[in-house]
């Protein structure tokens, strides 16, 4: 894939970033990637994101927690039944608390795992296409283009007066 290559443009301004992305999208470029120092919904909008599947993880995790909470407490009570304080062997009201805590716990952990999986974290490989300024003040747009369309992409990105425009081998680690 010698033809293909990646372009990384750093911008100082949000609107120029957003414009760049929108134009790239309009021009039908795939694999447009944006960098920003904070989550910005303009960018997300430009890239056309909708609901994140993280919520599914949370829901499933939470429900598993509830089920586990009730099942486990009940089973252990019945496994070796001991009467305490004249209370029923299986005292649901008490077990609600355990179930609740497990709901939260499993939900939270599932969410975290979901997040890591979905956003490809952790990723400790040295970053090639990356600019430390992205965590400070700059926005970045990376686009990967077939050889033929490289110039088009370059023009679009340059059109928004990037502070810097880097070119690299395609498929570089992003």
């Amino acid at each position, binding site marked *: 894939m010698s033809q293909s290559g990646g372009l990384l443009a750093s911008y100082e301004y949000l609107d120029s970033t957003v414009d760049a992305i929108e134009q790239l999208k309009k021009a039908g470029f795939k694999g447009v990637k944006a960098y920003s120092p904070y989550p910005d919904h303009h960018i997300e909008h430009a890239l056309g994101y909708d609901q994140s599947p993280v919520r599914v993880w949370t829901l499933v995790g939470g429900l598993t927690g509830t089920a586990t909470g009730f099942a486990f407490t009940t089973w252990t009570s019945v496994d*070796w*039944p001991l*009467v*305490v*304080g*004249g*209370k029923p062997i299986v005292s649901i009201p008490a077990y609600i608390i355990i179930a609740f805590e497990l709901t939260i716990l499993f939900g939270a952990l599932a969410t975290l795992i979901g997040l890591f999986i979905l956003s490809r974290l952790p990723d400790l490989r040295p970053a090639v296409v990356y600019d430390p300024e992205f965590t400070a003040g700059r926005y970045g747009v990376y686009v990967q283009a077939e050889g033929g369309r490289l110039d088009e992409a370059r023009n679009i990105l340059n059109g928004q007066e990037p502070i810097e425009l880097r070119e690299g081998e395609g498929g570089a680690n992003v």
Partner: protein
Amino acid sequence: MTDGIKRRDFLKVLGVTGASATLTGCSEPERLLPYVVAPEEITPGVATWYTTVCGGCSAQCGMWVRTREGRAVKVEGNPNHPVSRGGLCSKGHATLQHLYNPDRFHGPMIREGDRLRQGTWDEAEQLLAAQITATGNVMFIGGRMGPSMSNLVDEFVAAVNGTRIEYDAVSDAPLREAARITYGATGLPSYDIANARLLLSFGNDFIETGSSPVAHNKGLAQMSAVDAAGSKGRFVYLGPRLSTTGLNADEWYPIRPGSEAAVALGMAAVIADDAGAAGPYADVLRAYSPAVAAQAAGVSEDSIRELAERFASESPTLAMGPGVGGHHRNATAANIAVMILNHVAGNVGRTVHYDAAVSAATGAYAEMESAVSAMAAGQVGVAIVHGANPAYSMPAASGFVEAFSQAAFKVSFASAMDETAALADLILPDRHFLEAWGDSMPRSDVVALQQPVMQPVPHFDSKSAGDVLLATSVHLGNDFGATTFYDFMRNGHMEMHDDSVGDFETSWRLALRTGAVEHDMGTTAAPSQLQAPDVALSFDAPALDLGGDLTLLVHPSPRFGGGEFSNSPWLQELPDPVSKITWHSWLEMNGTTAEERGIREGDIVRVTSPHGEVEVPVWIYPGIREDAVALAMGGGHTNMGRWANGSGVNALALLPSESEQPSGAMLTLATSVTVTPTGERRRIATIEGSSDQHDRPIAPAVALADLGHVEEAEHDEGHAEFQELQGVGGFVPVPSEGGAATAFPLEGSRHGPYAESHDLPRWAMAIDLDKCTGCSACVTACQAENNVPWVGEEQVMMGRDMNWVRIERYIEHMDATQAGDLDVRMLPMICQHCANAPCEPVCPVFATYHTPEGVNAQIYNRCVGTRYCANNCPYKVRVFNWYRYMDDVPEPMNWQWNPDVTIRTNGVMEKCSFCMQRIRDVENRAALEDGRAINDGEIVPACEQSCPAEAIVFGNIRDENSRVSQVVSSERTYRVLDELLNTQPAVHYLRKVTFHEIASGGHD
């Protein structure tokens, strides 16, 4: 040794059943040590029981001893004993600790310069013989001993033509002397308390000291129990201070110290229509009237007159004269006065018996005085002390210590170091009574045998005094027809034996098995007529040495007696039945008196008498007259043992060295004192939080008048607070159904092993508060049975006492200023084994839970130590192991540990288990006997077994025929705090019955 003992060959070392279990696992290989020759009587892991006689005090109660692998692990009362009839006091239980006392001598000690070296027995006996032959002038100072031993001593002393002095620190000499003077009786009168309808005690603390505390305790309980006719005996205490005995009275006449004679005679004067009834004492009687008595006693004339009338009408009645605590200069006269009172009331032969004389504490102090002067004069060559500790138990003023050191050669038979032995040149450690043969004659018609229940504790090379005397006599060339004391004693009994009642061997075996045999002595006709006094008597209030403005009352301690029991940690830690204070001494003082002097509880005061002074903390006590202070004996040992030394003060330091005439008893009530604050304070090592119930339904009572309709009374008063609750729309707790067994297994517990639990018993207990006298025997019994540690004075002060039984003493009504009703509630508080136990659900690891048999179990090895259960226990009966208390128990005291009960380690909660080990033991036995059913009364917890008052009953409450169900069906039954908390305890209490009306709530 006779084969009688040889068969009981001794387990050389601990271990066959992993002797005393501990939670702390040890890692170096444990050794299993079999017998060399297996004794057929002993099966490892199975208890062997022996019958013997308690040698603790002059009462000589019958005793059962439980041995495991040849170690005595528990002593109990012997119900077959004609005098004590079951039950055992705290002191009796604690004798075990004297047996295993690590401070016992390891062998005969011979003085070399200022130190003692251990010698051999042969050497020691040679030395004694040599000294006797050399110096002569033998003086044998002997305490209480059995008849055979007494005979031996007499023969021994006669053979070396020495003198014998009988001495017992706490003796009833005045009573005996009075009996001799008035009726020519020998020994003490025997009382039939149980049948008295009105009992008067003129300062006689008969359930603590005296001829037979256990029997008297039982008698008192039976007397005060409500009989079928719905009546109960009434107990009136007349004295300046309420002792444990006094606390059980229904009325208290706080009479001036020493005014007993006046009151007794004043009453007698009322009863005897014509003074002539008093025979030779008629003129005495004429001299007294209620007015005079009232004047002397400081109580109203009417009250005395009215009491006298009742004493005459409610016959049979019984009056008891002043005991050891009331030995003032006219004590004999006072006792005679009381005998006159009994006489005119016609009690002689009904409740007072002079024919079956009780042989009680012998020694007269007067004899000691002569002994002292003799020694001081250097007329004594060899002074032998046996069974007594005069260096401690005589007032410092007596000069015994100085005199004793004048004797050329001083011998002591003490088995452990004491103040007297410390002065001796030769110490011949005697056997503990559990290791030796002996006999006793608690009453003139009863002979009881004391047999060794185990081989002597191997740590200590001891020898019974009898054997020593015999061996020495051999050296001296005398022959008493026996080489061992066992033979000597047996011969004696053989001579005494009359063959008409069967051959000797059988009756001997019978005596060994049952513990005692009653001889029909063909009792001499009861002396019924008063005899004229052969000595001068004064019935006036006794003179007091003027030392200050407060009369000093010195009384024997319910825990230490005269001090001979002081070296037992159990007794040191046993809360005093009156003050609930452990370990140290205290001065009892009335609140008003203290206020006048600006003294607060815990202030350390200096008590000064003409004879000495002591510094002791004050305890405020409403049960003592404002013009008196009281101090108990038994403290302040200087040279007795690790637990006695330095604990408390010796009250005798304040007393004169003087004997009462004519009885010659030591004076205990002889001086007044000044009390001055030292400015220092200390924390009192008490277990008492508050002696006020704060209107809580903990120890309610019911008036005799209300019996028969207690339920209604309950309804009117008992639930008053609930009605109040309803009034304000509060939550009304579910009132538990009456005493009857509660539904068990509980709702929701019908599962798994609990499904069949309706076939299982439900263990329950009933405690009759009308019988409980608060004597605290159960506390020590429980401690002995369940390996409950003692924690020491410091820890008790921090509130960490470990006893599983806490006898709560709530003072409802107590007035030291005038005669009137007395209402003190004694409540033994143990784990209530609640069906709805608050402690159970809060334990995170199920360390405490409810067994199918309805016991609230505590699984020590599962306990993590969160202490939540203790917080949530409304009865506060759970105790915690804050340290590794049991690790501090020295060899060989740990030999006493019960192998059937786990030793609890650091960080573990514990509490009453209903003696689970005994339940299991009986179950195992029943299973071996082809799975037979367990009989009612077969399982007896330690507390029930030792209770002299028979106030405790344990059993299966699901069986309506069981004793416990029967008792619980009483209308007096209630359960502590149950109506408030619905805890449904398995321990049921029966209300105390009072003569006076009970104020609102039925419980205050």
